[in-house]
């Protein structure tokens, strides 16, 4: 089973800064997007159980390398890094164009993507990419497994009544959630081995793309404003003996009509 995992390098959570035009600063301090680590973990478990290899694919600046190294240390076999000054400022459409072109040069049975990224939060790239590539799209996967016979993939998606079981022929694109299970920490052996794994750096030209279709200038959507969330109100901390504390908390909730 050949799985390509889309791994985005995002600003370290809690340190995000905006540049002019409300663009996210990706100049320093990047880490692997949390949701992407969950689908990478699922991909690694699938290939460990059923054979195959995991390839990481990212589009991002030079600083994305550390996030790729972590993914390789976790167990991915190789990585492709699309790095080109012209992609800076790309919106979801530009990103999808680049990723689709890069995927066109890779062989795969499955493409995995996290539900969204902690910096962009649009959550549209996986579906858009599947549509552009004409791949079946299995979203919000809480569990991923091969279908009976091996030519299909099965996904569980949590529903109000339990879970839906989705099945699609491969190749397919799966968008997963954190219900897939905690990503592993890279072992020290993995970190040392990661140093010798291949990270291919591709330019736009390597992907067969012209700069005109991507980047800030070609963006179809524009961020017109961003504001910091208002500071949260002070918390009420109840310190008392258990019975008295429970009474106080219940009274508090009742006074706000929450129970």
């Amino acid at each position, binding site marked *: 089973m050949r799985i390509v995992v889309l791994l985005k390098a995002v600003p370290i959570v809690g340190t995000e800064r905006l540049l002019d035009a409300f663009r996210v600063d990706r100049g320093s301090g990047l880490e692997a997007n949390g949701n992407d680590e969950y689908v990478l973990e699922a991909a690694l478990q699938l290939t460990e159980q059923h054979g195959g290899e995991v390839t990481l694919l990212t589009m991002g600046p030079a600083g994305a390398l550390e996030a790729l190294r972590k993914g390789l240390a976790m167990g991915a076999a190789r990585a492709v890094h699309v790095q080109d000054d012209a992609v800076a400022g790309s919106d979801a459409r530009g990103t999808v164009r680049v990723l689709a072109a890069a995927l066109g040069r890779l062989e795969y049975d499955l493409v995995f993507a996290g539900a969204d990224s902690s910096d962009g939060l649009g959550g549209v790239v996986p579906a858009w990419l599947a549509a552009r590539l004409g791949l079946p799209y299995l979203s919000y996967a809480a569990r991923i497994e091969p279908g009976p016979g091996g030519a299909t993939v099965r996904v569980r998606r949590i529903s109000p009544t339990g879970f839906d079981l989705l099945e699609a022929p491969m190749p397919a694109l799966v968008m997963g959630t954190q219900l897939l299970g905690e990503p592993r*920490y890279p072992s*020290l052996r*993995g970190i040392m081995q990661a140093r010798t794994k291949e990270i291919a750096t591709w330019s736009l030209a390597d992907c067969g793309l012209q700069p005109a279709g991507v980047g800030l200038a070609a963006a179809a959507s524009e961020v017109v404003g961003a504001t910091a969330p208002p500071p949260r109100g002070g918390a009420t901390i109840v310190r008392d003996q258990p019975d008295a504390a429970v009474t106080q908390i219940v009274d508090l909730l009742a006074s706000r009509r929450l129970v």
Partner: protein
Amino acid sequence: MTVRLSEEQLALRDAVRELADARIAPRAAAIDESGEFPWDVVELLASHDVLALPYPAAHGGLGGDLLTVCLAIEAVSRVCATSGLIVAIQELGGLPLLLAGSPEQHARWIPDLAAGRILPAFALTEAEAGSDAASLRTRAERDGDGWRIDGAKRFITEGNVATIVNVFAVTDDSPEARRAHRHLSCFIVERDMAGFSAPKIEHKMGIRGSPTAELVFEGVRVPDANRVGEVGEGWSIALRTLERSRPGIAAQAVGIAQGSFEVAARYAAERRQFGRRIGEHQMIGALLADMATRTEAARQLLYTACQEIEAGTPLAGRWAAMCKLFAGDTAMAVTTDAVQVLGGYGYVSEYPVERMMRDAKITQLYEGTQQIQRLVVARDVMARGS
């Protein structure tokens, strides 16, 4: 000379730190309070190859150099000194084998040590042979094609949970052999050997999750295949082991100092008295500045010592003693100041600094007291004239 960590060392250090923060730090207070050996931490460190660091790749290790091993010990000790000691002992207890063991012995034990499937212990100290380690009384006598060991060891870290114990015993009691330091030999005693027992576990001030055992050897039959190095080579093996293991204790000390400094710095940035953050009061600010400076100085001495020792300096014993001496005293001073910065909160177990202060004390005592380290350095100074 300055020490720049390689990209790989930085990546390994950060990975161990992340693991320690997420998985060991939340356990540290409970490990201290229960005083029980944290087998779950052994499992965690083994499964992430931290215990494999000091061992050669040919036997399943990672072939990490001394500095890399110390970076791991420091990163773990920063949150839990007991857990950091597990990494240090995994190295210490394997060193006699690495330094003097035969290829057969390597093949027999090192894969299990590197995988963390077994724990080792290093048994030199006796009740009456502490700083005067060469005066030990445990004996090994020829018995057919093997040896028979009688005696007792005291203050042996992890002695009761180890599968293999490096035991140093007298094999030649003649005055000539003693004078030439050829009176000792090193043997691997296996836990299930008849006559071996660990009857007593010490109740300690710090590193409370790390068991410190008294070991008793009553006619323990040990095959000659378990003898490490030549007959009479024991003292030399012990000294060469300490040259590489004392930096590990220095790393534990730097980690403890760093951990307590971070708690104190965070507290000083949050706690307000007299209308401002207490770190903005000069007297607290001065404490924080000294803590940061001392800790960094100890760290740099340790890193340089590691590189010098790894490069084969003839001054290895001196570097090892100097970094352990300085780092141990630093850990004690910095953790004491950390308690001071936190005031009354520092003295209660709600905050971790009182534990770190108790843990720091051992780094001034074991693997040679600070007085012994000074003796090593002073003797070297007098021998070289500088």
